[in-house]
């Protein structure tokens, strides 16, 4: 290999670096492509390779596999595997339990998302005020989302307890009757929603707070000079400028709530009856308790498509903002 300083002077015409440091030969910046080794030319691929292998192994292969399995009747324990075409999907569409799960998942996801974003917005507006103690309250306000969902469920299950729960005790103190939080089929889903709201409002709150703080003060001052006050400021300055962050909070929370599984598992176990059945829970039961992998895979494909649609909106936002 030719030495760099033997071929061409550097920088200013005719001035040659006086004493080249020993490591100078390693410099890649001044090597022409044909002078770089094969390894150097493909460094980008080498750097990406481990991630690529893991991602392919952990996601692309499984997703292809799920689609493949969804066309089979496949019981893991009995070792039965037979091609049945779209039969799994047809059966799903007639499965009352699956439809119930679908309905509950949508109900849960929509209510929880809307409530979390609204409450998060309220909280963000409060924390957008400069007040004493803000520095300490801000980290405390996001405690719920730092807890493991299982810990959250443990706490709420104890508070929801019909006889010994603090919530029912509180209600009876005010003179109201006790409530069957997790036992009443009409109420159980909403009790789970409440737990999710408690745990994840801080997430929407943080996103929206960042949005509020990115709005320049001058805009408010200018509007105030023009005579706008209170609600008008909120309606015509805050909301329009917060649009992106609101969108982000809505998308992220709806994608996340759509996957609801762990709370259902720990709080109600899908019951009472089928009152808190969700898609994730359906897949879990079919796949990992009955080992009907084919049916579970078909349900998983349906779910993946549903989440994928919402995610597509999210990705469009990412692309439009040129953050890639």
């Amino acid at each position, binding site marked *: 290999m030719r030495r760099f300083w033997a071929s061409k002077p550097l920088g200013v015409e005719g001035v040659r670096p006086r004493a080249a440091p020993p490591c100078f030969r390693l410099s890649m910046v001044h090597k022409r492509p044909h002078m770089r080794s094969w390894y150097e030319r493909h460094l980008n691929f080498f750097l990406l390779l481990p991630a690529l292998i893991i991602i392919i192994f952990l996601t692309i*292969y*499984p997703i292809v596999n799920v689609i493949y399995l969804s066309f089979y009747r496949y019981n893991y324990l009995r070792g039965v595997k037979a091609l049945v075409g779209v039969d799994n999907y047809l059966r799903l569409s007639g499965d009352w339990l699956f439809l119930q799960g679908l309905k509950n998942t949508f109900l849960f996801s929509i209510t929880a998302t809307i409530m979390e974003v609204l409450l998060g917005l309220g909280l963000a507006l409060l924390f957008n005020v400069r007040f004493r103690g803000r520095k300490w309250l801000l980290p405390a306000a996001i405690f719920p989302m730092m807890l*493991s969902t299982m810990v959250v469920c443990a706490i709420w299950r104890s508070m929801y307890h019909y006889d010994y729960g603090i919530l029912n005790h509180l209600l009876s103190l005010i003179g109201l009757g006790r409530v069957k939080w997790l036992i009443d089929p009409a109420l159980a889903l909403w009790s789970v929603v409440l737990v999710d709201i408690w745990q994840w409002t801080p997430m929407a709150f943080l*996103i929206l707070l960042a949005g509020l703080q990115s709005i320049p003060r001058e805009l408010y001052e200018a509007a105030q000079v023009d005579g706008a006050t209170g609600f008008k400021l909120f309606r015509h300055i805050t909301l329009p400028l917060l649009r*992106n962050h609101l969108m982000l909070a809505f998308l992220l929370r709806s994608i996340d709530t759509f996957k609801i599984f762990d709370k259902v598992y720990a709080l109600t176990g899908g019951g009472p009856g089928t009152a808190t059945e969700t898609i994730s829970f359906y897949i879990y039961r079919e796949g990992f308790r009955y080992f009907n992998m084919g049916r579970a895979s078909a349900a998983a494909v349906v779910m993946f498509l549903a989440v994928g649609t919402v*995610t597509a909106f999210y990705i469009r936002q990412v692309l439009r903002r040129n953050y890639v």
Partner: protein
Amino acid sequence: MYKLRKWTWWFGFYLLIGLAMIFILFPIYWMVTTSVKPPLEYATRNPTWFPQHPTLAHYRSLVEQKAYRYFLNTLVVSLSATVISLVVGLMAAYALARYRFPARLDLLFLLWVLLVRMAPPVVIAIPLYTTLRTLNLLNTLFGLVISYQVYTLPYSIWMLLGFVRDVPIEIEEAAAIDGASKLRTLRSIVLPLVGPGLVATAIFNMIMTWNEFIYALLFLRTPAAFTLPIHIANYITEYEILWGELMAIGLLSSLPMLLLSGYVQRYLLRGFALQLK
């Protein structure tokens, strides 16, 4: 930020924020106090608001049950998953931030990774279960570490991508002119500069894996390998009201995460690909 003028506004403001903080913090207060109450004070129709006879009995019985095994398991899993994700993620993020790939493969890869990050974990769990079973990794912590890459790797790649892009390329060029090889530039220039980013990413990965539930539930069957969330879940579903111990272990397992909340609040947005500033 806003500053309020009239005292009536301040009154309403503190009222609202007080109510919000009570709603947010009361369940946590309840966990802390229940964990030091004797059963007589919580397994009753009139639970006490404040522990009258505080006791550490529940914590002692946790030690007797060797609950620290679960802490150890969880720590091992989340640390190794985090380290793997950081190394692999940083390499990938650097490649994606600094090089061009043919046919916009980099963009495709990034979007796929984003899609994976949003996908429901149960969807991937079915084939992953079969794969882990054939590899004899079911029921092992190593198998769990690998499956956690589904969560942590996409997250790390996206988060570190932002941090690598923040490193001015001129510094790297200067290093190259001074004769540093590409790997050396990575090690001595890029690595220190993305240091804070690495710490933030590591913390988020730790939180995610420390609290992870579904994969641990599906892929671990023997109690010896259980992680904390699984242990707690079993507690909830098997023993109806051993709340003292339950809250004690819940509190202990949450403490490390609660201490990190200041960090989370500062860096949360970076992980979501939309760094709206």
